[in-house]
């Protein structure tokens, strides 16, 4: 395949994605991140610090801070942004058209990889444009040095863009990873990379931050600043007092550093092309997922009856009747049908664990486990009518708000049932604060899932948003604890349950408002 042909294929794919409204939102998020990466000198929230210090906002430090924050964001959020490119070709039928052309699997994958890089690269580009604006806005240095400003983007952000683009494609082309399970797995892979990739011994230089930190430490030492106990931190952090500053004029990359960055890009390209070994080119018989799989994941062709007998209209007299309960059962079926047996087995094990573990472990271990396990089930809320094209049928049905309510209640039922035994233990122990926090969480999770699913019409937004929220709670951050897992003196330390319930009501209100607006827009 010629480079020109590859470029045209990638460009067409990029255009298709860039013309979606969601793309503008991702660019806006990049601008927001650029703002956060260079915070006001007096703020208590920072993204990058070296102990009690930060660099003065010159081009080198601003560019590095923005590029590093961008690298973290692009590898997590960016992954979910570029996910699903092969699935989309399958759903739209474009894949079958391409399959009938001489385009071979490696060429198709290379074009998709390049298109992923373009999408993520454009987000990095927006960040790079935001950096000088923020440097001037903060007013600590008026001299823009393009080389020092952009070097971190080229050496840190770009290789990670390539890695993320390749990982998204690899997951898309690997049947077990192509859906929600892949999204969940990536979150934990990202955690490992973001934390482990900062160390000096990280493979291929990790995320590339080590060389930068070493350079900063050398400059601080040269300026006789006290470095004892000063740890580098990357990630949104609350600090007790504003950071002191030092002047850092950037770093000169060593040949070894450049070589590891290049190796990372090459490794990414290899990973992107690796699925050519099993990619089925949209032939369902060769491992590509059939459009509508059965619960056990295998297609079940049903023999078509040969002679339909349209004998005449049915005669049963139709009477209206209390149908809400059956609607709720239907929504529960839609939500839960398709979950494999092993999923139910683990859910049952968590339920049993809730009964047998010591009470102190119930909020800290069992409850978080119970409320992460159905993450793929919850992420279906608000998306399935659109995903399966059923909304074109339901548009002509009465009482759409009643259906939305039934859908939310089905999510609430799943949430409550998943953590039923923790509730029983709290009640038995007369832990009423725990019961309240549990109830707040039970309302919050389906509301969040339904709201994000309805707004985005995609599973990914909830999966990408809920996992960090849950992780923060499971790691003992009380500020975001929506379920009462973090305890101080035996009482939930997170936000008050009524506040969580109120937020849930707001989210539910957003769901109904979105539905009404979409129906009104027609």
């Amino acid at each position: 395949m010629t480079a020109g042909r590859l470029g045209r294929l990638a460009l067409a794919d990029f255009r298709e994605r860039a013309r979606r409204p969601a793309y503008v939102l991702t660019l806006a998020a990049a601008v927001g991140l650029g703002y956060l990466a260079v915070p006001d000198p007096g703020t208590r929230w920072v993204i990058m610090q070296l102990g009690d210090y930060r660099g003065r906002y010159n081009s080198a430090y601003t560019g590095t801070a923005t590029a590093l924050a961008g690298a973290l964001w692009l590898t997590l959020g960016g992954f979910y942004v570029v996910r699903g490119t092969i699935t989309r070709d399958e759903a739209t039928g474009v894949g079958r058209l391409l399959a009938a052309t001489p385009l071979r699997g490696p060429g198709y994958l290379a074009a998709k990889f390049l298109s992923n890089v373009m999408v993520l690269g454009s987000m990095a580009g927006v960040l790079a444009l935001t950096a000088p604006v923020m440097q001037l806005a903060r007013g600590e240095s008026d001299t823009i040095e393009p080389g020092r400003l952009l070097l971190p983007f080229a050496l840190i952000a770009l290789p990670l863009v390539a890695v993320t683009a390749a990982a998204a494609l690899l997951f898309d082309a690997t049947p077990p990873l192509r859906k929600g399970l892949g999204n969940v797995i990536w979150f934990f892979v990202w955690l490992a990379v973001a934390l482990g990739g900062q160390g000096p011994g990280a493979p291929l230089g990790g995320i590339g931050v080590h060389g930068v930190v070493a350079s900063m430490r050398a400059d601080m030492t040269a300026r006789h600043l006290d470095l004892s106990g000063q740890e580098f931190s990357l990630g949104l952090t609350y600090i007790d007092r504003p950071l002191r500053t030092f002047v850092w004029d950037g770093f000169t990359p060593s040949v070894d550093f450049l070589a590891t960055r290049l190796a990372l890009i090459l490794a990414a390209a290899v990973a992107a092309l690796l699925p050519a070994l099993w990619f089925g080119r949209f032939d369902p018989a060769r491992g590509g997922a059939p459009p509508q799989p059965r619960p056990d994941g295998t297609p079940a062709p049903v023999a078509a009856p040969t002679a339909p007998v349209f004998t005449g209209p049915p005669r049963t007299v139709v009477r209206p009747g209390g149908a809400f309960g059956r609607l709720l059962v239907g929504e529960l079926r839609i939500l839960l049908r398709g979950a494999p047996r092993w999923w139910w087995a683990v859910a049952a094990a968590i339920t049993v664990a809730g009964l047998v573990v010591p009470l102190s472990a119930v909020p800290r271990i069992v409850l978080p486990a119970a409320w992460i396990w159905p993450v793929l089930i919850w992420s279906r809320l608000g998306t399935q009518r659109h995903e399966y094209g059923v909304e074109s049928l339901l548009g002509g049905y009465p009482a759409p708000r009643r259906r939305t309510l039934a859908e939310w209640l089905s999510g609430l039922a799943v949430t409550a049932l998943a953590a039923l035994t923790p509730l029983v233990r709290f009640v038995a122990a007369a832990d009423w604060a725990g019961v309240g926090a549990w109830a707040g969480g039970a309302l919050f999770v389906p509301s969040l899932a339904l709201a994000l699913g309805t707004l985005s019409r995609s599973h990914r937004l909830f999966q990408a948003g809920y996992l960090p929220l849950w992780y923060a709670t499971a790691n003992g951050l009380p500020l975001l604890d929506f379920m009462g897992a973090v305890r101080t003196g035996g009482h939930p330390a997170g936000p008050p349950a009524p506040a969580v319930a109120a937020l849930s009501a707001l989210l539910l209100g957003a769901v109904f408002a979105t539905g009404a607006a979409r129906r009104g827009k027609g």
Partner: protein
Amino acid sequence: MLELIDVSKVYRGGKRAVDHMTLRLGPGLLGLLGPNGAGKSSLMRMAATITRPTGGRILYDGVDAVARPDVLRQALGYLPQDFGVYPHLTAREFLAYLAAAKGISARAARARIDELLELVNLTEAAGRPLGGYSGGMLRRVGIAQTLLADPRVLIVDEPTAGLDPQERVRFRNLLSELAADRVVMLSTHIVSDVESVASDIAVVADGRLRRRGTPEDLLGEVAGRVWEAVVGPEQAALAQTRHPVSRAVRTADGVRLRLLAPEAPYPDAEPVAPDLEDAYLAVVHQSDNPADQWREARR
């Protein structure tokens, strides 16, 4: 009675899909014909309360269906051109869910679903997940759901797509029977689907209602103006630029053309009895070419 009064639909970007169209429908079957992109589906979606018109009114038994869509939705059976299903549900579960969404009592829903599955010959397959159904079987599920609530208004958009010829004939017969005491609106670009069942035909092009009448009315308009002739390939190519050609069949003697013209286009052209396809073509062709000579000559 379903009334669409001076209805328009302008999409974002200024695309006018439906342009001041008025249709009043009582019991009977209205066949809505038109080329692709004529505005049929937009009109059907507005009539089915899916899409709100940007102008005009839609009334069902005098009730404003735009302001109070649930009144019409309670009485409506709608089959869109494209629709999906929940692949993990069985046909029976899917129909039960839709019956609940319609607000039908449990007992009536059970009996009705049994009848409908029998009607569309899916009783045996009713317990299997819809994900394994063929396109034609899914279409039949779609047909079944339109009849769940014994609708007084049936709106079906390209309903026979995906059905085999035998199924198409039987479905048309069913529609014909239903139309005895219901409003049935059938949209298609397959003229033969309408020809056999519709007593009332509306031809739509460029978002406007171009003609409405009985099949006999439409046929009467082209009587004596349909010709057949065998010509050479070059003449055939030329003819297509001058006249609406409804058929062109290459034979050993040349190309047998069937075309519309106010008078014999060739000395050996023979007049033939028009069919609905000729009449439809005449209306659509006139829409594309308002100053068309053959129409002018007829006047």
